[in-house]
């Protein structure tokens, strides 16, 4: 029974993230536009963009290999799966035990790995620029991420997201410096991973500053649609992750009935809305930084997270 | 007592005979024959129960050395037969010199066998002196300025050393005489071993110092080693082989006999530290010297100094393990080093030069010789599965367990020498072949016979040999 229910929840979760991702992106764009005083597109614009891209034909470089064509599907699946693993409205997910935070990070890592390869496949200089910068950013973002996991798991004694959420909801943690540090670090990582300002600007195609966009420059049509959708999913994933670890309130737990689940969905939507608004506010209030300062930015994140881990020992003899 | 007499008499007679044979080809064959007879006798001796008389002593210590000497003597005579053929071909030697050479070769064997088997300090000293004189003459055989200079250096240094050794011998008698009364007894090993406990230690110490410096000069211990590299480099290669392989052992044997006496006499100073110091000095110095060598024979001569240093160090450490290691190392080194000199002799003849940088790619141009030389160097460098690895294993481990501070310089010295050996052997054996490319004259049998023995010894030692070594190790204290 519970297994069936869990699988049901899992399927709902997969579809939910898929459905919400473009909306979130649209919402962030709208909020940004409004903050700078423009009317801005409708929040549903991303759906239209995706549909249009899917309709279009694919223009493929002559020497593109099979890898180039396979990557969009691979990375989309990986990120979709990852997004499906983050408890959004309930902790009762069928796939929860198959993968913990570390696996999640690794999934995102493999998506990035293949995208970077795809960037180098055609052999244009932009692809190279994008891939190399992306990998450099990842080289710092991943350890920071794992350190965050480390400090959280010191507290919670687990790296399985469901259990983390449960624990956090139980309120046994209270307020902690180390958690605050971890949160800041996680936000920084999220910004970097999602190619947002100040690391990268999703809206620009200025060659010198591009990272993510440069990698996918050669993509078009349905491939591009998949890549775009994947990045939207990724944004949602990180928001859900932050929410799940630091603000799991309202999530349906074991034995929660239908009402709890509905309430969980609503809470999730609310969290996304707030998160999107905050992101928009942050992005509008800060300027893009030079690519080679990114190292320092993420190095900072890494140190913060490490500090968080060590602070835990000080704050309480774990 | 029969066998030992044959062992000592054969070379003496054959020296006289060879002095009368003008034809050098025949002489070379006879030389091999006589050496074979000596070896047979030595093997017989190997079988019979060790015994001792007024003139000769055969005990666990020297029986193996005698057999070893006879064996290397035979293999070297085989090698020399091919070697001199080439030397005559290129007109470096003529029949007259070869007549002298063969006679001297046997005379040299005689002196060494006598020194090993003599039961009398004086006789042993005379024998060692004789060995010096004969080898001096052979080193100067080529009559080139360099060889004369080498022989002169050799003669002066070892002459002084011999004189000091004689003084030590006299002192030994001086010490023993009050206890054992005047007469031969006070100069006979077997009797001395019995009574030495009562001998005045002060004179023993004095005697040992002179004997160590005296015979140590012939062992080639630093800083008394100066004669050794030149003598090896300038003389005919067979002589280099026997010098490294046998003469050094004989001199060390003498030192060890006296060490036995000191060990048997409780009150005398421990000779260990002196030997350890000189051994380490030789090891480190020779190891460093290896790097700057350009003459391949001199190169391996320094490696002999290095190994004599290791052996002396081992006996200086004392104790069952270290002494065993030392004895094993003595045997292994003489086999390996003479094998290397055979290979080097061939290499020098085919390439027509002794300069290391002019010899390259032996394994390509002369595969059998090249791999043989490589195997020899691998063995001398103390790599398994050859015998020297076993002795160095025992020495280093036991030393570190007892005196860690001594094991460190020992290991460093071995590694330094190792580095130089690897550097040179790669140069010589690998890379694109350079230099002349003449065919090999004479047989490679001696080379591979020695290598086979060393290989077998590295994997398995016959029981009786082990038993002998252990007895001697106990006697050496």
């Amino acid at each position, binding site marked *: 029974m519970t297994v069936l229910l869990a699988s049901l929840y899992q399927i709902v979760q997969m579809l939910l993230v898929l459905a919400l991702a473009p909306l979130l992106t649209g919402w962030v764009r709208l909020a940004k536009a409004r903050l700078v005083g423009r009317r801005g597109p409708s929040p549903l614009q991303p759906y239209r963009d995706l549909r249009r891209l899917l309709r279009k034909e694919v223009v493929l470089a002559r020497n593109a290999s099979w890898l180039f064509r396979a990557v969009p599907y691979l990375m989309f699946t990986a990120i979709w799966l990852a997004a499906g693993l983050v408890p959004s409205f309930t902790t009762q997910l069928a796939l929860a035990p198959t993968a913990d935070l570390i696996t999640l990070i690794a999934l995102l890592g493999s998506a990035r790995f293949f995208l970077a390869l795809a960037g180098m496949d055609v052999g244009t200089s932009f692809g190279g620029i994008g891939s190399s910068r992306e990998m450099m950013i990842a080289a710092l973002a991943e350890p920071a991420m794992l350190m965050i996991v480390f400090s959280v798991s010191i507290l919670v004694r687990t790296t399985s997201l469901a259990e983390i959420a449960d624990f956090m909801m139980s309120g046994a943690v209270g307020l902690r410096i180390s958690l605050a540090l971890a949160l800041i670090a996680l936000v920084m990582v999220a910004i970097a991973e999602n190619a947002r300002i100040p690391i990268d600007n999703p809206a620009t195609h200025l060659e010198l500053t591009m990272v993510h966009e440069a990698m996918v420059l050669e993509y078009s049509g349905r491939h591009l649609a998949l890549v775009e959708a994947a990045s939207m999913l990724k944004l949602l994933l990180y928001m859900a992750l932050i929410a799940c670890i630091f603000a799991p309130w309202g999530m349906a737990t074991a034995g929660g009935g239908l009402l709890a689940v509905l309430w969980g969905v609503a809470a999730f939507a609310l969290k996304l809305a707030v998160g999107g608004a905050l992101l928009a506010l942050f992005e509008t209030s800060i300027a893009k930084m030079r690519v080679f300062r990114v190292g320092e930015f993420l190095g900072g994140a890494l140190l913060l997270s490490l500090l968080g881990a060590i602070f835990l020992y000080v704050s309480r003899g774990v | 007592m029969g066998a030992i007499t044959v062992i000592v008499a054969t070379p003496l007679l054959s020296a006289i005979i060879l002095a009368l044979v003008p034809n050098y080809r025949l002489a070379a064959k006879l030389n091999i024959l006589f050496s074979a007879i000596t070896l047979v006798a030595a093997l017989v001796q190997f079988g019979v129960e060790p015994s001792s008389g007024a003139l000769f002593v055969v005990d666990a210590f020297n029986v193996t050395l005698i057999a070893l000497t006879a064996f290397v003597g035979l293999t070297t005579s085989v090698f020399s037969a091919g070697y001199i053929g080439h030397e005559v071909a290129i007109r470096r030697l003529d029949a007259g010199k070869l007549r002298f050479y063969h006679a001297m070769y046997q005379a040299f064997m005689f002196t060494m066998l006598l020194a090993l088997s003599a039961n009398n300090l*004086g006789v042993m000293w005379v024998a060692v002196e004789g060995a010096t004189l004969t080898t001096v003459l052979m080193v100067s055989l080529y009559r080139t300025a360099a060889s004369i200079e*080498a022989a002169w250096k050799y003669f002066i240094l070892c*002459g002084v050393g011999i004189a000091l050794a004689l003084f030590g011998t006299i002192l030994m008698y001086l010490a023993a*005489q*009050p206890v054992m009364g005047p007469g031969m007894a006070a100069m006979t090993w077997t009797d001395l071993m019995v009574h030495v406990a009562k001998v005045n230690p*002060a*004179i023993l110490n004095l005697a040992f110092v002179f004997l160590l410096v005296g015979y140590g000069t012939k062992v080639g211990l630093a800083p008394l080693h100066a004669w050794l590299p030149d003598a090896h*480099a300038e003389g005919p290669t067979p002589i280099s082989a026997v010098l490294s392989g046998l003469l050094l052992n004989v001199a060390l044997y003498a030192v060890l006999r006296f060490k036995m006496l000191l060990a048997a006499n409780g009150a005398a100073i421990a000779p260990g530290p002196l030997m350890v110091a000189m051994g380490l000095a030789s090891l480190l110095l020779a190891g460093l010297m290896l790097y700057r060598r350009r003459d391949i024979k*001199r190169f391996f001569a320094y490696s002999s100094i290095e190994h004599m240093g290791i052996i002396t160090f081992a006996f200086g450490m004392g104790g069952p393990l270290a002494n065993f290691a030392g004895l094993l190392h003595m045997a292994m080194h003489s086999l390996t080093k003479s094998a290397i000199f055979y290979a080097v002799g061939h290499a020098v003849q085919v390439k027509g030069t002794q300069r290391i940088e002019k010899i390259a790619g032996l394994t390509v141009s002369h595969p059998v010789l090249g791999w043989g030389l490589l195997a020899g160097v691998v063995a001398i460098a103390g790599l398994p599965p050859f015998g020297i690895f076993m002795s160095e294993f025992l020495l280093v481990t036991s030393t570190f367990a007892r005196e860690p501070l001594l094991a460190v310089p020992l290991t460093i010295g071995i590694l330094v020498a190792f580095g130089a050996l690897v550097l040179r052997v790669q140069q010589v054996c690998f890379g694109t072949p350079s230099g002349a490319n003449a065919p090999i004259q004479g047989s490679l049998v001696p080379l591979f016979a020695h290598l086979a023995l060393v290989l077998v010894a590295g994997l398995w030692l016959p029981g009786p040999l082990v038993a002998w070594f252990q007895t001697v190790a106990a006697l050496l204290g």
Partner: protein
Amino acid sequence: MTDLGYDAAHMLGAVVLLMSFALLYQRRLFSLLHVFTMQALALAATAAWQAFSHDEPHLYITALLTLVLKAVVIPVALHRIILKMNIQRTIEPALGIGLTMVAGVSLVTLSILLVLPVTEDATALTRENLALSLSVVLLGLLMMISRRNAVSQVVGFMSIENGLILAAVGVAGMPLVVEMSVAFSVMVAFIIFGIFLFHIRERFDTLDMQKIESFRGESD
């Protein structure tokens, strides 16, 4: 033994030692040879005296050998060589004469220090004799390293042998083997030296070792 015998032996030994000092002191080759001859004579006398006082007749042979070889044959031969090869007659010291003397004295002190503990069972004579011969040997070695000429080095070598014989005759009942071997070795040694001087004469026009040694081990 009698005090007289003791004193005489001691005195003769002392003369030998004195002669070694004198050898160190010489500046000219010929005088060097003369001093060496005197040392040999003193040595022969010692041997003879020992033979007489311990009545060991074989020591007379030693004395005779020494007298003939060391006091006559060798000096004459060396004299010949010097004349024949007309080498320069002065000795050039590598170490200043004064310094050499100081070194010699300290060597003698060292040998006395070394012999002092030999009190117990050894007779007084062996002790003195031991100290004397030890000093003579060391001085001979010093002689060899502090002079440049080949001839003076040969002489130094000989005086080492003299020290050996002095030690040998001093101790009672030393079997003949040793003296024979000493004599034998000295003789051979001298022959070899001769051969060498000859070869070297072939190759170099001087006996000055500096030139010989200019032949370096490694020609590089």
